[in-house]
């Protein structure tokens, strides 16, 4: 019985090998392209320490948490003082991701926001103006026309539920594979955090 069970697995292995060889697109799991520099450096030097969240300093796949304190902000000069009262706004995020403050700054500058969560989560509510771009829409091809329609001159910010969700990373991996020239950032905090800080949202919920 075990011999035949192994034979079943062997046949599956042969078919899987053929499938892998014949498949057009390679499977991608990690980001290959160089990640963009800290979005805060050029636009708002007063508010954050670039060392906190500079994705360029981070090797791909490094998910270690940032061990520094949140940046110190001066309420008198901080344009986002009303949001900064919520600790989530400046809470450090893991390397390679951007903070809520940086995300909101890009939002105000007109960056395209992509929602990498499930469709029902997007429909229940999403960041204002965000496009639903779950990774499966890129892997099955249904979202590729939407990806080509994105303004490549503006940065792209991808978010999911936050924490250790991989959805944003997965969408970024497949977007980069399209080589559309986007400057891609991943929001370290999730949609619920965005809502709790009181930043703009839209949708049924």
């Amino acid at each position, binding site marked *: 019985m075990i011999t035949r069970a192994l034979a079943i697995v062997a046949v599956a292995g042969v078919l899987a090998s053929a499938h892998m060889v014949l498949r057009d697109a390679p*499977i991608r799991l*990690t980001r290959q392209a160089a990640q963009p520099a800290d979005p805060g450096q050029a636009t708002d030097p007063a508010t954050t320490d670039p060392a906190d969240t500079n994705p360029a300093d981070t090797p791909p796949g490094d998910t270690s948490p940032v061990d520094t304190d949140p940046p110190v902000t001066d309420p008198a000069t901080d344009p986002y003082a009303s949001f900064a009262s919520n600790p989530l706004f400046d809470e450090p995020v893991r390397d390679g991701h951007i903070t809520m403050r940086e995300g909101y700054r890009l939002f105000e500058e007109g960056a395209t926001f992509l929602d990498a969560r499930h469709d029902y989560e997007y429909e229940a509510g999403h960041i204002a103006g965000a496009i639903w771009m779950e990774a499966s829409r890129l892997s099955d091809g249904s979202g590729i026309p939407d990806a080509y329609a994105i303004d490549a001159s503006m940065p792209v910010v991808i978010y999911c539920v936050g924490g250790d969700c991989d959805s944003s990373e997965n969408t970024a991996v497949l977007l980069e594979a399209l080589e559309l020239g986007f400057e891609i950032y991943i929001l370290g905090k999730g949609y619920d955090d965005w809502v709790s800080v009181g930043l703009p949202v839209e949708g049924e919920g």
Partner: protein
Amino acid sequence: MKQPEIPTHAISLAASVMSLGARLLLGGMFCFAAFKKLGDPQQFAFAIKGFKIIPVETAEPLIVVLAFVTPWTEMIAGLALIVGLWTRSAALVIATLLLAFIGALIHVIADPNIQASCSCFGDISLVCGDEVGWCQVVRNVVLLGLIAVPLLLGGGKFSIDGLVTAAKESIHGPALGLGQGADQFDSDD
């Protein structure tokens, strides 16, 4: 008082029907799950990565191989189960897969920092939602109970194994000690 005897052919028929039901249900489910995964192996590879059992930084090729081999194994074992060819062996493969899936699900549930999608049936949620939880564990334990039927009883009369055994018996006579002889073919190894 003497108990009425149940004819042995009736026992064999009941076992064959039970096995057929379990085979069609489980074989169909696994073929469907494999079909959905093979339609988008990129998503299944993401799902394996999301379980955070295999480190993507050091073992990315292993995740890619599993993203193809796992659904093809489900497909071949599922088809074998449906037609009743090497029934016990196919059931053993599926039982092993179910045990591995249960272990992976418990790993995710036990770590609150992991937010993973099951992707058990591709983009379809069957009985449970997409997010990993105890529902999927219970579902797989139930399936494990069902797979025990063909694993223990074999394919029965309504299977290729049964037909082959019946053909052998018609040539060589009934096998000693194995009664109705519908499921010995897969016991040969």
